[in-house]
């Protein structure tokens, strides 16, 4: 059998959903289920090798071709960008990017330059660029919702799933920016050099979504 295809999975929920999907396809994922602390795990009957990584690293590994494929959220792809093929929308991990501000305020009011707090500065910048708006962007690492409450910023750009966190903190969505879900990405050279194997796998996945 040829060298296994290496697939990088974003640790956590996307990893679990992907493994669920692979099991639905009939592959034996026991090694990944009982991984312990290992980071590279085989799925022998699919001739796959699973690599567990943080979202940003999934893109880096795929771009450099050390992993042939990866499963990563559209949020990370939009923030990081890069050179790879984005072959399938896996449908799980659904949420959206949205602009939110304190409930009851008119975000677009006035001439002053707005300040935006976010974990996703590139997404925020390109969103406001498309509106022709100059904004100050402040990168926040933890709970972004704090920034408007502490009056550091006028609004936030963040991932919104149900909106509960926003509501509990007196914030509301002003505008949706983009829908998000898990994507299957493939290294540009791997797709060409191992076309059959990758296409077969994607075919199987698409049938079972």
């Amino acid at each position, binding site marked *: 059998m040829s060298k296994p295809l290496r697939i990088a999975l974003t640790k956590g929920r996307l990893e679990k959903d992907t493994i669920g999907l692979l099991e639905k396809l009939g592959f034996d994922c026991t090694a990944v289920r009982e991984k312990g602390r290992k980071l590279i795990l085989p799925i022998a009957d699919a001739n796959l090798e699973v690599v567990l990584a943080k979202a940003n690293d999934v893109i880096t590994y795929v771009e450099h071709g050390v992993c042939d494929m990866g499963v990563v959220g559209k949020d990370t792809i939009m923030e990081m960008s890069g050179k790879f093929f984005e072959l399938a929308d896996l449908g799980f991990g659904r949420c959206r990017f949205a602009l939110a501000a304190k409930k009851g305020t008119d975000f677009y009011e006035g001439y002053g330059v707005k300040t935006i707090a976010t974990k996703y500065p590139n997404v925020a910048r390109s969103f406001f660029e498309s509106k022709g708006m100059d904004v100050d962007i402040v990168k926040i690492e933890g709970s972004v919702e704090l920034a408007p409450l502490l009056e550091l910023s006028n609004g936030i750009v963040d991932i919104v799933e149900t909106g509960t966190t926003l509501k509990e903190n007196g914030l509301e969505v002003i505008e949706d920016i983009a829908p998000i879900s898990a994507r299957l990405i493939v290294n540009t050279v791997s797709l*060409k050099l191992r076309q059959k194997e990758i296409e077969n796998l994607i075919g199987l996945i698409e049938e079972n979504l």
Partner: protein
Amino acid sequence: MKTNDLITPEGTKDLLFNECIVRRKAEEKIHGIFKSRGYCELITPEIEFFDVFNRTSRYFPQENLFKLTDLKGRLIVLRPDNTMPIARVVATRLKDAALPLRLYYNQCVFTMAPSLKGKSAQTVQTGIELIGSSSKMADLEVISAAIEVLSACSEKGFSLEIGDIGFFRELVSKLSVDEDQSETIRKLIEAKNYPALNDFLDKIGHNDITHALKKLPRLFGGEEVFEKAAKLFSDEKIDSILASLKSLYKQISKIAGNGRITVDLGMVNRTDYYTGVIIKGYLEGYGEEVLSGGRYDKLISEFGYDVPATGFAVNIDAVSQIILKNSKAQPKSSDVLLFAEEGYEMEALAYAGKLRSEGLVTEHSFDKNIEDAIKYAEAKNINRIVRVGSEITEVR
């Protein structure tokens, strides 16, 4: 004060010893292939006016360029590409030269690499430009050279991919979309972003063209691609593009051997100056293409000289990196170490000259005594030690 005098800028590196050996060998091998086909070298400046690259047909995002100004305040850049400066030379100093021109180059290109991604800011490229013919034979000459280069550089396997930008252009021109929309479509096809492409085209409409464009990124692989493509859409122009690409595919498959040549009709590079056949070469063990090129019949006319051209560039750094991974090339140690006794320095210099004329790499010892010289020779793997005094003795 913090100074940066011990490091190199991000995206650059020093190459030492075997890295240089491997790179020079790869260059030599590839240049041999070019020269045996009658290509002559040219060297253009490392810096050029920004205007050379600031073209509608080929867009270099200014944030990726290294910029300087000249004494008159005009904008100068470190060249991000080799073909544009060559087009400039062809349209000026070589305007009256007999055609076709066969040119090759071996020089760096510079682009600001995104921070901390392990990408280079400075890349050595070598490549050819065949100027003055739009014939099929010219395409064949360039592609067969590309195949020879790939097979000379590959330790494991290589693959060459061909496509024709015309297929995409024809389809999009039949669609009533503005420039921004067609650029979005191009980007999505290039990224093979199936889901987003479908969504975008659904908004534009449901017809033969949008259906064909949706399938375009999937049109890659072997000969079966032509059949699939022919079913998608048919008119005179598209049929003729497909027919000539298919015959080219069959011809070069014969040169390269089975399975090495693939087709990708969804190859629609950002470098939109291409006008016809485009090629990309891959080597096993490297995550990006190592060779790319194609036909660019309209580019030189932007510099005022209307002449067709085709060519390709090879990423020498990538090729060297792959060879290095698989080889243990070490710099050759010297053949002879000469130890001069005090007062016999001139004799040692003369004797070294004699050994070198026999083709032996000879170095002088600066040690105070012969014991230290022997230790040094052992550390450096030098097998022969000669002592020059009142007489010349072979120490070992």
